[in-house]
């Protein structure tokens, strides 16, 4: 069983690394090595900030912007990283982990977050279970993906509509706000969502 888990983790890491390299090979990043170094450095800072919060469980489903971050979490022995089948499973798993006394972080893309409204309002709001959620701020100006423009239009209004505290991480200095977001979630017994911009995740802001 242990051997399988180890192999599973290697496969996940390999897949994430392939995703990063794939993006680069398609020429979507013109300064790929700088971006990779910047993204890795930022990913490490986010991972360290999460560890400082007492988080030991990370459940994720990838977005192209957070593959480096997920790879960092998956490779860091301070965390148990779980690759979930869908974003709602991250909400369920991390919410249960709260009752198990484990600090948890649900990490996903913007589109995935929008699929979680039911789980968040029914589980976390009904039972008042705190949770720190990390998402990508897809669809903001600068995001060239047409299929993410709906997120630019509706993501933040939807977060506001369900009354969920939202902490944007728009500059590298904002990464320290993860601790405040995590603490606020515990204080108010509700989820708090932190949103990472592309520039921050690439180490450019």
């Amino acid at each position, binding site marked *: 069983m242990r051997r399988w888990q180890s192999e599973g983790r290697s496969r996940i890491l390999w897949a994430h690394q392939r995703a990063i390299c794939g993006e680069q090979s398609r020429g979507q990043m013109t300064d790929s090595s700088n971006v990779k170094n910047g993204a890795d450095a930022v990913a490490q800072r986010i991972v360290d900030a999460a560890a400082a919060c007492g988080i030991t469980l990370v459940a994720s489903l990838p977005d192209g912007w957070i593959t480096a971050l997920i790879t960092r979490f998956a490779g860091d022995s301070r965390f148990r990283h779980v690759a979930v089948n869908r974003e709602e499973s991250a909400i369920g798993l991390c919410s249960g982990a709260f009752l198990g006394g484990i600090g948890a972080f649900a990490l996903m893309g913007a589109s995935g977050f929008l699929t979680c409204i039911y789980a968040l309002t029914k589980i976390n709001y*009904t039972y008042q279970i705190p949770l720190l959620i990390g998402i990508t701020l897809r669809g903001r100006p600068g995001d060239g993906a047409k299929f993410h423009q709906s997120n630019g239009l509706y993501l933040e209004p939807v977060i506001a509509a369900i009354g969920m505290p939202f902490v944007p991480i728009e500059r590298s200095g904002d990464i320290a706000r993860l601790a405040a977001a995590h603490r606020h979630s*515990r204080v108010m017994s509700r989820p708090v969502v932190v949103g990472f911009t592309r520039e921050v995740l690439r180490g450019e802001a």
Partner: protein
Amino acid sequence: MNFESCFRLLAERLKDEIVVTSAGNCSELWWQITGETERVFYLEASMSLASVFAAGIALGAAERTVVAFSGDGAFCMNPGMLLVERQLALPNLKHFMVANGCYGSTNDLAHPFGELADYAGMAKAAGIERVYEFSTVAGLAQGLDEMLRDPGYAFAVLHVEPLGRHLPSPPLDGPEVKFRFGRYLERTGGRPVFDTLLHRQ
């Protein structure tokens, strides 16, 4: 097998385990039979997430056996839950999927999925080694101890008839369920849930 007889047997045998019940019949019937308010988390708003929620609890309560009940309607919404549970391979998590062939929380409206798919076969195909299937109370009585006591994640399909009636929900608000359950875990040797230090900036 008869749904209520099945749950009466389970309630009789599951005395020390932590229990998570999903929306509808599972929560309502467990509440009617046991009236328990401490070691049971009535996750009445789950729609396929009861077992992964239970997995999160099991991660932190490694010394306790955690039993999750889900329905076949929920299972069909999210069969990928098996892949997450297989990946986690938690030795203290036991997942019972109640296959009643209908949506018990919505007036037993029938669904066809049980006739189309082999749920136990799906679990085996997901790589789960310990898969059980019970269609009679006698069979459940015989196989239950092995499923619970042998270490390792296990998944069981409970083939039951529709309950045929609507029972009252547990008369507990969400925060009450949370606090009763969390305080029980803390009091019985679990990790601190509510009293953990809040990290300062």
